[in-house]
Structures are given as C-alpha cells and as structure tokens.
C-alpha cells in the first residue's frame, strides 16, 4: 500500500490525525466534501447514517467530512451524526460506535483537496470501501449506501459510478461531450464519468492517492474524473449503479466555465499520460450495471434557447483569433458559417461538434495557447451544440433522445482516428 505523504504538504492536521486515531480501522467510510452546505447537509448526513446502520450494521463505519472552511456550521451538523456511549440512550440504536468527524482545509471550493483528504483518511483507516456523497445530493436515500458500497465491499469492484434517471435535457455537457468522448477514447460505456456521488475500493484509493498529481491545479479540480480515468487505466473493476432520479440543479450561465474546467479540463489533461491506453482502443464495451432504472416524472425544465444561440454567435465572432490557434480552418469556417446563418434554428451537427471537440483536445495537448483559455473558448461552442441538441429533440420522446445520444457516441467513436491524426502533429 502506498504511503500517505505526511511531510510539509500533508492535508492532515494534527487535530484531524488525532480524530483518525480515535476512529481506528474501518470497513466502510463515507466522505462528504462540503463548503457552506448547512442548508442541505443535515438530512443528507442523517440519511447516510441511516443507510449505514441499515445495510452495514455490523461493520466499522465512519463519516469523514472534508470541509473547505464553512462558516455556517456545516461541520457541526455532520458531527451530530456520531453515535457513541457519551450520549446514552441516543437514537438511533447502533451496535457499535459510529464516528462522524470533520476537518477543515484552507477556505476553498477545491473538491480535489477534499477528495485527497478523504482518500488519505480512507488509507490511514484501511477502509475497504469508501463512498463520496455530494453535499448537494438532496435526493439521497438510505439505499444509496448499499447501492454504492456493496459492489465494492462484497463483490470486489474498485469503482462504482452512479447512473441516474435524468430529465432528457439535464446534463447536456455530460451527454454531448463527457460521456461520448470518454466512451470513445477509453472504450467503456460509463454514463457518468464525472460523478459527484461514487464509491471506490481501498486499493484504488491508495493507488490514486500516491500517483495523482495533487499539486497540479487542473488535476485537483477534476480529481473525480481523474479517479475514473485512473481506474480505467489501471484496469480496475468498474461498475455503475442506479441511484434513482437526479434532480436538475439550477445553474447560472456563469457556472459553465468552472464546470468545464473541472470536467472537460480533467478529461483533456488525462489524454496525454494515458495515450498508450486510449490510442489502441476501438469501439466500446458496456460495464456491469446494478439496480434497475425506475420510472420517474421529471419536473419541466426551462432552457433559454435564444440566449444560448446569442452566446454562441457572439463567442464565435469575438474569439476568432483564439479559434484560429485551436481549430482547423475548415472547422472554423463551418462554425462561422452557422453562427452567421439566418436560419432559425441553425444546426450544429454531430459531425462538426465531434470534430470541434477533438481539435480542442489536440490543441490542449499541444498547448497552442494557455490551456485554461482553450477550455474557456470551448464554452460558447458548447452552447451552440446545446442549442442544436435541444432544438432537435424538443418534440422527441426519451427514447428518441437516447437514440440521438447513442448516435453521437458512435460519431465520437467513428471519428477517433481523426483525433489520433491531429494529436501527433
């Protein structure tokens, strides 16, 4: 097992280390990264506790909260889930002591630091199975604990990623880029490669902790995605488990770039070190999936398509010089054409989108300009693609939408040789 670095760069404060000594070895660990989540965290932690007590009543278990400097009492709410003998007659009943502890790192939203802290704790406590639950997963049920952890704890999987029932227009970045590109490159049909709720084995966590470039800002930001890619690269056993309905979280348009940094940035940056892994793979294979998708009736989703179109057109016009560094002339010309078109709606085709994304990935690899600028420049183009995706599917059934996503995936797979070609330039 790889050693946790406890030198000057340790993420473990002395106080946290003392708490970990008190927790001792565990079988099950649930990590909760937080930052000012007091409004939602209480019921989530209660549900985690209930799930552990219901499905793992005999196992040694703990909740580890890695908090980015909350000022709203979040850590205290998490600590209240502990069950021990200094609170006699506390409810609910537990066979053994149940720890729920917190540590704070420098005030920051960096999920990478939180994940690193959770992984370090998991390694020191020799956790066999570790789940990470997002503080925004208000739809969590006690079943999640067994759904995520059981495949690792009893079936020797190393990474469990979630699948959700989503509104057909929820997660367009996921359905139009992350999922199809990850699938095409790495050959596995992982529906949620960027997951905020997931579980990993002790051995995967240890390996990732030792190998991941935690000091690299981009890698830190997308560490969850990196974990998935590390599991693929290391040929760890991966499965996905159905967690139920995923409620659509309202996002401001300003949220897109940070989200893309965290996900697309991580995906792009993974390509370089894993070139030997993805360059030889063709097609894609399903991965084991547990739990059956249930019917759900989603809330109506409001999307301002007009605004998407405007931002696309404006972006293409304003970023021309940037795009000239990133895109091939033919791709840029085609984008400029559709951005100028009077057609309502215009069509940003799957073929053009895939080509665009691959050219961005190659440009990222070649660092033709600042990598962060490359990611930022992709945002308006993604909005254009989102506009087309919404327009094309506006009257389609869920199955139609799914078929279109599948077609897009196949397009990513078909076009992969193009990426290889431009990669080596």
């Amino acid at each position, binding site marked *: 097992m790889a050693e946790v670095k406890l030198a000057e760069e340790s993420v473990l404060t002395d106080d946290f280390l003392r708490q970990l000594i008190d927790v*001792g070895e565990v079988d099950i660990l649930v990590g909760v990264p937080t930052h000012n989540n007091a409004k939602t965290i209480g019921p989530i932690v209660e549900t985690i506790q209930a799930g552990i007590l219901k499905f793992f009543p005999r196992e040694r278990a703990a909740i580890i909260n890695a908090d980015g400097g909350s000022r709203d009492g979040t850590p205290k709410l998490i600590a209240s889930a502990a069950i*021990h003998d200094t609170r006699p007659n506390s409810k609910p009943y537990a*066979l*053994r002591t149940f720890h729920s502890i917190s540590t704070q790192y420098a005030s920051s939203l960096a999920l990478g630091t939180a994940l690193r802290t959770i992984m370090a704790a998991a390694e020191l406590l020799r956790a066999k199975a570790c789940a990470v639950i997002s503080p925004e997963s208000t739809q969590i049920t006690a079943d999640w604990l067994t759904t995520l952890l059981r495949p690792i704890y009893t079936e020797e999987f190393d990474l469990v990623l979630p699948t959700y029932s989503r509104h057909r227009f929820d997660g367009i970045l996921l359905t139009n880029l992350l999922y199809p590109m990850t699938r095409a490159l790495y050959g596995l049909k992982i529906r949620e490669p960027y997951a905020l709720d997931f579980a990993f084995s002790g051995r995967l966590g240890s390996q990732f902790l030792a190998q991941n470039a935690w000091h690299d800002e981009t890698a830190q930001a997308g560490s969850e995605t990196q974990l998935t890619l590390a599991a693929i690269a290391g040929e760890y056993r991966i499965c996905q488990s159905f967690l139920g309905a995923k409620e659509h979280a309202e996002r401001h348009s300003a949220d897109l770039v940070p989200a893309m940094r965290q996900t697309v940035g991580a995906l792009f940056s993974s390509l370089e070190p894993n070139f030997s892994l993805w360059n030889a793979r063709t097609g894609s294979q399903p991965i084991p999936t547990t739990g059956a998708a249930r019917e759900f009736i989603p809330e109506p989703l409001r999307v301002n398509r007009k605004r998407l179109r405007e931002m696309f057109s404006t972006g293409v016009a304003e970023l021309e010089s940037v795009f000239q560094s990133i895109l091939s002339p033919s791709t840029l010309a085609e984008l400029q054409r559709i951005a100028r078109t009077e057609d309502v709606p215009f069509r940003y085709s799957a073929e053009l989108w895939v080509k665009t994304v691959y050219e961005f990935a190659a440009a990222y690899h070649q660092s033709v300009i600042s990598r962060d600028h490359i990611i930022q420049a992709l945002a308006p183009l993604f909005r254009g693609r989102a506009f087309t995706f919404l327009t094309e599917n506006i009257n389609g059934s869920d199955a139609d939408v799914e078929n279109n996503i599948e077609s897009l995936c196949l397009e990513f797979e078909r076009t992969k040789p193009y990426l290889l070609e431009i990669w080596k330039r």
Partner: protein
Amino acid sequence: MPSKQDVPWYKLAIIYQAHVRTFYDSNGDGVGDFQGLDQKLDYLQELGINTIWLMPFFPSPLRDDGYDISDYYSVHSSYGTLEDFRTFLKSAHARQIRVIIEMVANHTSDQHPWFQQSRSSRENPLRDWYVWSDSDTGYPEARINFVDSELSNWAWDPISKSYYWHRFFSHQPDLNYDNPAVREEMWNVMKFWLEIGVDGFRLDAVPYLVEREGTSCENLPETHAILKELRRRLDEQFPGKMLLAEANQWPVDLRPYFADGNEFHMAFHFPLMPRMFMGVKLEDRKPITEILQQTPEIPLSCQWCLFLRNHDELTLEMLTNVERDYMNDTYAKDKEMRLNLGIRRRLAPLLDNDRRRIELMHGMLMSLPGTPSIYYGDEIGMGDNIKLGDRNGVRTPMQWSGGWNGGFSAAEAEKLYAPLVQDPVYGYPAVNVVSQKRTEHSLLNWIARIIAVRKTTNVFGGGSIEFLYPANHRILAYVRQLENETILVVNNLSNAAQAVELDLRRYKGNILIEMFGKNIFPRVGDLPYLLTLGPYQFYWFRLRRI
C-alpha cells in the same frame, strides 16, 4: 462513598463454581463426589478463590443435572453422604473458603414425593403444593424458557388428569408459592442447610415463583414479598449468610431484587456478560458502557455477581434481536453450538483459545464492579464437547492431568458420567492442571496471579466506579475508588495496538503504579495522559500521591 469497613465478605469473594459430579471422583465409580472435592480443596486454595458455589448435589433423577430435586434434605448417593458434605464443609472453612449451595426453589423433580402425592388425587393434602389447572390456557403471556424442548408451560398429567405449570422442563413442576405451607417448607430446607453451616444460597430461577393471570409471571410483587420474608428470617436467625439471585432479567427488572438492601445480597448481572463478549468482538466499549449506564444504583450492602461462563448456555436473552444475531453469527457459527437463546460453549473455545482475549476478559471480570465467579475448568482453558446434548458439553470432567481419565477418575472410561474432552487442542493431554502448574506462565498460574492482585485491595469488591470516555472507543477505561484508594483500569478491546489519551486532570500530581509488575508510570499532569496498549492488553494502575 463506600468505606473499607463496610465491605462485607461476599463483596470481597472470588467465587469458584464447581459441580461435585464433575470435579473429582475419589472412589472410582466414574462420578465426582464430596470426598473428591474435599481432596481438591488445596488446589482451590492455591488458586486463591475464597468461595465455592456448588451446583445441586441433592437426590435427583438427574434429568436436568440435579436442578430436578427429589429430596432437599439429603445428598445424592453418587456424590456421597450428608456426612461427607459436612466433612467437606469443615475442610473448606478450615481453609477460609466459604461454601454457597443451590436452592432450587421454583420447582422440584416430578419424582419428588411432594409431586407424587400432589398428582395422586385432587383431594390429596399436597395437591395445592403445585400449580394445577383443567386447561392449558392460563398465563398465556408467560414466555417459554426452553424453547428448543418445550412447546408450552403447561404439561398434561395423565394420573390426575389435569395440567400442571412448569417454567422449565416438563419434568420440573413449579411449586405453588401462593400456598403458605410451601413457603414454610422451603424455609425449613434453607434452615436445614444453614444449620449444617453453609454460607449462603444461590436461589435458582427466582423471578418465576408466583403466577398471576394477565402478567408475564415474572418479577411479580408477590414474588418479591416472599423473597423478602426469606431474607428477614435469614438475617434474624443466621446473620452473615448470603442470598444470591439467579434472575436473567434486564437491569431495571433486576434492581427490585435488591429492594432496600432487604431482599438479595447479590444478583448475577446477566445482561453485562454477553456484552463483554460483544465488546471484545466488536472492538468497541459501547455495549459494555451502555449496559452499565442502564444499570441502576444498588444499596451499599448489595453486590452484583459477574461471570464469564457458567454451567448453562451463554444466555443471549437479555440482548436485542440485532445483538443476538450478531453474537450467534460470531460466536456460534455452527448451529450445533446454539441452545435455546444461547450458546453452549466454554470460555476458551468462545475466545478461539486466544490467551490475550482470555486474560482481557478475566481482567474485566475482576475489575468491574461486582464479585467475580469463575466456572470450573475455565482457569485452565478447558474446552467443550458440543456433541453432548443439552448443556452437558460444558459439564465434562475436570482435567487434572494428562493421565488416565485426565486424572478425574480411576474408573473404566465407559463408566464416567460423561466422556472427557479429547480433541487435540482442548483435550486433557493438552489442557490439564498438572502440566499448567509446572509452567510458570500457564493460564492457571496467570489466573492465580490476577486473583492475588485483586485481593491486594478492597477497591474492586467495594469501590465506586467512574467511567472515563476517551475518544478512542476501543479503550474501556474506568476509575475504581474506595475512600482514599484509587485504581485506574484501562482495557484495550482491540486486536491491534492502540494509543489513548485519558483525561486524568482531577488526579493531577498522582503517579501511576502498575499493579502486576509494580512499575512506576509518569506522574499525571495537566495534559491528557497518553498510554499505548498492545492488542487486548489491560492495565490496572494504583494512583498514589507521593
């Protein structure tokens, strides 16, 4: 705060539970006897125990190993004579060893003449000495204790053509304590043995003496009234003698058996025992501290009796379903090991013959508040034989040596009342008194040592307890105190080494003296007191301000 002068003998007792039948056969008939027990008193004295609790030795058909008595005033012929008992008692007392005997008060054997008369006709004067009914529907709320062998608490008697009440085996009819004549007769039985010189009684199955419709027929006020009356007579006529209750109940239901110090002197703490096993398996003090938190205060003159194992199954009745399932799955994987709501195994096999765990469990037994009771053979780590029926697997002959019949009897092996344990790990060639006496660090010598250390102080028997709650839940730590004498106990329930910080600020300035090696540990200061403990290690520290 208790004081040293207040500590009565039973609080300072180290009880050794023995069965005449199983201990030593002096006449070569294959069955242990009083002369044999007498011959082994030196062994018990060397071990350091100061009280013997004898299982029933009265005439009996032995369908429940003597708990089915057919004559309360005599000794079973296999075990010797009343005179043999008197001789044994005198020898024990000469060695400063007290003797408490069984008082199976709730029921008799169906072979007892009282029952034979009672069943003979509805007009017999003893008819009302037992609980009869024309139907088997009475007292439906009463639970069945022996769920593996009994379907009902009522049994049909073909002779008197009516049903009789029994809370245990159907061949053990319950006496009717609503009948004053029964109460008087049972006092006469106790008086008989007290006059011979016994030091106390373990009263078997006391919660069940009285039955009332619409109740569980357990712990009824009428039962308590009867027991108080027995105690009153005992104190009046035989001061200094002791009553010990067998009441397998929750702490809150056990508490009334002490009343205001005028019912029982002692009672077994049944709910604690399985939780000690659970705590060690879970590596978590929570089950132990929680049950002790739920245990009410008892009068100063009263005492809990603690035990790890006894002649019955390791009872799991006082556990929740979740806890019981856990115990069964971890301590009795083989279903043959289970009996009723318990586990019919001895201490050493239960603990995987792990010397460290056996020592830790004895460390807790000897240091938690109460009087410890050691079951015969556990001091050498005897095993069991689950192939023998009922609870007989934990009642095999004492293993004295590696020789003929384990030194228990000169009889032919086939004549023994039960076969000796013979497996390679626990069999008498491997586990016996002679070989352990020769080995300085044997379990036997270690048990003698811990008893000796316990006896250096009255704190464990008579002192108060205060739990420390270090954040490390694998550490069970408490302070025992009697007047100005203070002892700190720290137990590591875990299979791995542990670090623990104890808040001992109120003892600032004291130095710690480890009670076994008498070595000095650092003085207590303002900072948390850091200790490291090896797997299953425990410390007893005497706190001294020098």
